[in-house]
C-alpha cells in the first residue's frame, strides 16, 4: 500500500507539473504587456524597463516558470493587477465559498445519485430504470446555465421563495447564507445526479452479470443478501472514482453556476480576472483549482485502493 501511495503521489506531482506548465504557457501568451497593464498608459519606457527588470520579466521563460512555481508553492501569490490587493487571502476566501457550495452539492448528490443508480441498475429495462434513465438522460446534457435559469424562474420569479442572486457578503453567518445557497446547490446537484446515476447503473448491471453472483445465488442466499453482500460491495467501488471525476466536472459547472447566481466563488473570480486580464490572479485561481482537482482524484484513488483488496494487497 505504501508503494501504491507513493506511486499515486508521484503521478499527482507529475500531473501538477505538467498542468502548471500548461497554465504558465497559456497565460504567458495572453495578449498585452504586463508592465504596461500595471503601470498604465502614461508610463515612460524607462519606468517600464525598470518594472520588467524588478519583476524578472526579462529573464528567460524557464527561469520565470521555476520562480513562479516556487512562489506559488510558498504561498507568495503576489498582488492582483486589477484590485491591487493581496491575491492569497482573496483566493482563499473565494475558495472557501466554492468549497461550501461543492460540499453541500456532494452531500446531496452523491448518496441520492448512488441510490437512484443502483435502483435503475437492479431493475434494468423495467419501468423504474426507464424512468430514472430517461430523466437523467434528459438532464445530463443541459448546460448549467439553462438549468439554473429554469430554477430561478420557478423558485424566485413564480414562487418567490428564494433569492435569484447569491451575493454573499464576506463574514455573513450561515443563517444569512443558506437561502442563497439552495438554488446554486440545486443546479449543481441536478447536473451531477445524472452523471453519477448513469455510471453507477452501468456498474451495477455489469456486476450482476458476473459468475460470482451466480455462485452466491446458488448457495441459496436470498436475493437481498446477494445484492447487499456481494453485488453492491463490488459495484459501488467504482462509484468512488466516479464521484471524484464528477468533482472535476463540478468545477467546470461551478464556473457557470457562480456566474448565473453571482455567487462569490472561485469560478466567478476567474471570469472576473479573465475579463480584466489580471495575469497573477488568473494563474493563482487556475493553480488552486487544478491542485484541488488533483487532490480529490488522489483521495478517491487511495480510498478505492484501500477498499479494493486486489489493489491494496498487490503493492
Amino acid at each position, binding site marked *: 500500500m*505504501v*508503494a501504491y501511495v*507513493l*506511486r499515486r503521489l*508521484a*503521478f499527482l506531482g*507529475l500531473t501538477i507539473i505538467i498542468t502548471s506548465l500548461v497554465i504558465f504557457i497559456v497565460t504567458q501568451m495572453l495578449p498585452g504587456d504586463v508592465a504596461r497593464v500595471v503601470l498604465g498608459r502614461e508610463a515612460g519606457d524607462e519606468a517600464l524597463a525598470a518594472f520588467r527588470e524588478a519583476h524578472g520579466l526579462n529573464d528567460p521563460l524557464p527561469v520565470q516558470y521555476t520562480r513562479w512555481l516556487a512562489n506559488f508553492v510558498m504561498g507568495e501569490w503576489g498582488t492582483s493587477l486589477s484590485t491591487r490587493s493581496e491575491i492569497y487571502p482573496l483566493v482563499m476566501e473565494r475558495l472557501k465559498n466554492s468549497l461550501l457550495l461543492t460540499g453541500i452539492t456532494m452531500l446531496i448528490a452523491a448518496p441520492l445519485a448512488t441510490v437512484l443508480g443502483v435502483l435503475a441498475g437492479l431493475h434494468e429495462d423495467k419501468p423504474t430504470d426507464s424512468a430514472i434513465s430517461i430523466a437523467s438522460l434528459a438532464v445530463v446534457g443541459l448546460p448549467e446555465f439553462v438549468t439554473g435559469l429554469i430554477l430561478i424562474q420557478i423558485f424566485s420569479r413564480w414562487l418567490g421563495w428564494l433569492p435569484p442572486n447569491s451575493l454573499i457578503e464576506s463574514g455573513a453567518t450561515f443563517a444569512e447564507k443558506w437561502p442563497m445557497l439552495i438554488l446554486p446547490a440545486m443546479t449543481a446537484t441536478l447536473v451531477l445526479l445524472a452523471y453519477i446515476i448513469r455510471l453507477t447503473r452501468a456498474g451495477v448491471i455489469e456486476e450482476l452479470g*458476473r*459468475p*460470482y453472483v*451466480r*455462485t*452466491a*445465488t*446458488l*448457495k*441459496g*442466499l*436470498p436475493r437481498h*443478501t446477494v445484492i447487499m*453482500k*456481494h453485488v453492491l*460491495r*463490488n459495484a459501488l*467501488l467504482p462509484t468512488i472514482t466516479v464521484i471524484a471525476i464528477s468533482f472535476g466536472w463540478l468545477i467546470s459547472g461551478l464556473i457557470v453556476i457562480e456566474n448565473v447566481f453571482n455567487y462569490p466563488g472561485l469560478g466567478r473570480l476567474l471570469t472576473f480576472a479573465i475579463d480584466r486580464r489580471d495575469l497573477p490572479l488568473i494563474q493563482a485561481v487556475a493553480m488552486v483549482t487544478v491542485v484541488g482537482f488533483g487532490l480529490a482524484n488522489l483521495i478517491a484513488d487511495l480510498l478505492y485502493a484501500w*477498499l*479494493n*483488496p*486486489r489493489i491494496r*494487497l*498487490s503493492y
Partner: protein
Amino acid sequence: MLNIQGLSVAYEQNGVLLPAVRDFSLSLAKGQTYGLVGESGSGKTTVAMAILGYLRGEGRITGGRIEFEGRNLLTLPQSERIKVLGKSIALVPQDPMSSLNPSMRVGAQIAEGLRYQLALPKEQATRRTLELLELVRVPDPSRVARSYPHEISGGMQQRALIAMALGVEPELIILDEPTTSLDVTTQAAVLDLLRSLIHDKNTAALYITHNLGVVAQLCDRVAVLYASELVEDGETQALFQNPLHPYTKGLLDSVPRLGQNKSGYELPAIPGRIPALTERPPGCCVFAPRCPVAIERCFSERPILESAMGDGQIRCHRWPEIASGEISHAVKETFAPVKARTSTMGEGDVLDIQGLRVEYLVSRSITDAITNAILGRPTRTVKAVDEVNLSIRPGHTLGLVGESGSGKTTLARTIVGLVERTDGVVTMTGLPLPSRLSERDINTLRQIQFIFQNPEEALNPYLTIGETLQRPFITIGGKSRAEAREGARRMLEAVGLPVDYLGRLPGRLSGGEKQRIAIARAFATNPDLLIVDEPVSSLDVSVQAAVLNLMERLQTENGSAMLFISHDLAVVGYLADRIAVMYAGQIVEICSAETLSEFPHHPYTEALLHAVPGIAPQPLGQTIRLQGDVPSQIDVPSGCRFHPRCPRFLGQVCVDVMPPHQQMEDGNWIACHIPPKELQQAQERSYRGGGVE
C-alpha cells in the same frame, strides 16, 4: 433421484426460438457419477443451468420436466426452489477466478453458505470451513481462508469452490468443466481429489465436460450430446470400448492418445463443422451431414432414442447394422493423396538457437520508476526464457511442451520477432537472424511464419477472406493483384474450403474454418519454418483432428520445418519428430517422439505423462502428482528450477546446483542430477506397478 424427462430449452433471438436442448432425458441415481459430454454449442451447459434454474436472460424451458427427489423443479415456486438449490444441489463452476467474489475473503465465502443453509453459528462455521479446506487438500487452510481470491492460484480457487459445494453436504453436485481452465498438472490433482471425494461421500454427480479422458476416469455413465440432441448414453466402459453412434466413434478416434505418432498412425478426422443454433432443422438427424454412414433416411427423418446393448440408449437409424458389424462407422477425412515434395534444403539446421535469454521489466512507467527509486526497490525483471538451446532440422517437427508460465509462447514470439531477445545467437538457414522484426528483410519474413493460438483473433474481422489471403502474395511475394487473387483461390482450395468463401467476412466462419484460413495464409509464402502455438486448443474436439491433419499434410507438401507448441503431451507426441519439454523458462528435456512412452524422462516430463487423462487404462503403479504451482517468472527458484515441486527431489544439490545436461541415446538429454539409469528404474516401477520407495 434426479430425473429429467423430455427437457427442451430454447434461446430467443430476434423473436425466433432457437432450440439449444431438444427432448433431453436422463436419470441419475444416488451416488452415481454421470458424465455429460459434448462440444461447445451441444447444449450440455444449458442442461446444467436448466436444472439450477439459472438460464441466461433469453433462455427459456419449452417443455419437459426436471424431477428432483420426486418434486418437479420447474413448477416449484421460486422460494422453495432456492431452498432446494442451496441445500441439495451444488455447482462447481467452470471459471474459478470469476466465480468467487473478488472483494470477500475465501473463508467468509465458504462459511456464508454454511451459516445460511445449516444455520451454524459463526465460530462453528469458521471451524467447519477450515475442515472443508483440509478435506479438499489445501496445503495451508487458515492462510487460504484469510486470502482474497486473487491471492491464491487457480487450482486453489477451484478447491475452495469444491469445498463450498461440499460444505452443505448436497445430494447432487453439478460440475461444469471444473478443470478446463487449469494447467495439466493441476487438473490431474483436482481430478484425483474429485474422484476420491465423490467416492467417499457417495454424492451423486453430474460431470459436464468436452474431455473424453476425464469422463473415462471419473464417471460410471456417460451421455453424449451433439448439437442439442442426446445421441448416445451408456455405461462408461461399454460405451468407450464399443461406441455405437458414429459421432461418439469419431470423437473417440480423433483424439490422439499417448504413444501414437503420425509415423505409424493416421488420425481419423470428422469432416465438416458443428451446425450453429440456427442450422439445426428438426426433421432429420443433426449429425447426418458429417456422418460417414448417413443414408437418405437420415436426412428426412429424425431418429428416436432407442434402447440398445444392455441398458444403453442410442439415437441413430443405422445402429443395428453398426452393432452387428455389418457396416463400419469409423470416419476418415478424404483428401487428395499427399505428394511429398523433395526437400531442396541442405543438411544444416533450419533454425539454430544458442543461449537464448528473454527478459523484460515488470513495469516501464515513469511513476513506477520514481516509486522504486524512493523505496530503494530493485526494478523487477521477468525472466521468461533463460539459456535455451534448440535446433530444428529441415522438414522436421519439434514439439515444445510446457504449462502456462513455462515461457514456451515467449520463445516462439522471440523467434518470429514479436518479442526482442535479451541475449543469445539465433541463426536461420545458416544466416544470423536479427532480433528486431524491423531489421529482418523480406526473405527472412517469408521464411518464418506463425500460426496463432486463437483463430477468433487471427483474422481481421473487417477484411474479407480473399483480401486476407491475397496480402502475403503482394507484400512478400511481390505479385500483382491478379496473381494474388489466383494465389488466394489456390490456398483456399488447399485447405479444403469452397471458393465462395473468398468474399466472406470471418464473422460467418466457424472456429475451425478460421484456423484453416490462418493456416492457408501461413503457407502462402512457402515458409521454411512454421511456428504453431496451440493451434487447436481453442477448437472443438471434433474439428481438431482435421486441422492437425491439414497442417501435417501442407507441411509435408512444402517441406517446411515446424515448431509445434502445446500443453498437451498426447497431441505433441502425435505430431512431432522430437519433443522439447520446457519448465520455468528452461528446456529440461529433449527426446524423440518415439521414446516418449519409454523411460527415463526428466521428473517433470514424467509428471506430465502421469497427468494426461487418458481414455485407455491408467498407469498401474503409483501415480505421480505435482504439488504447488509453476513458479513465477520473477522469482525463479535456485539450482534446478523444478526442485520445489520435484517428486524425485535428491537433496541440497538440487537447491544449489544447476543440473547438468545428461546425454542419452538418440541425442536425447535431460537436465537432472539423478543418473538416467536410476531414473529409469524408479520411473518404470511407478508407472508399471510396484510403487515408489
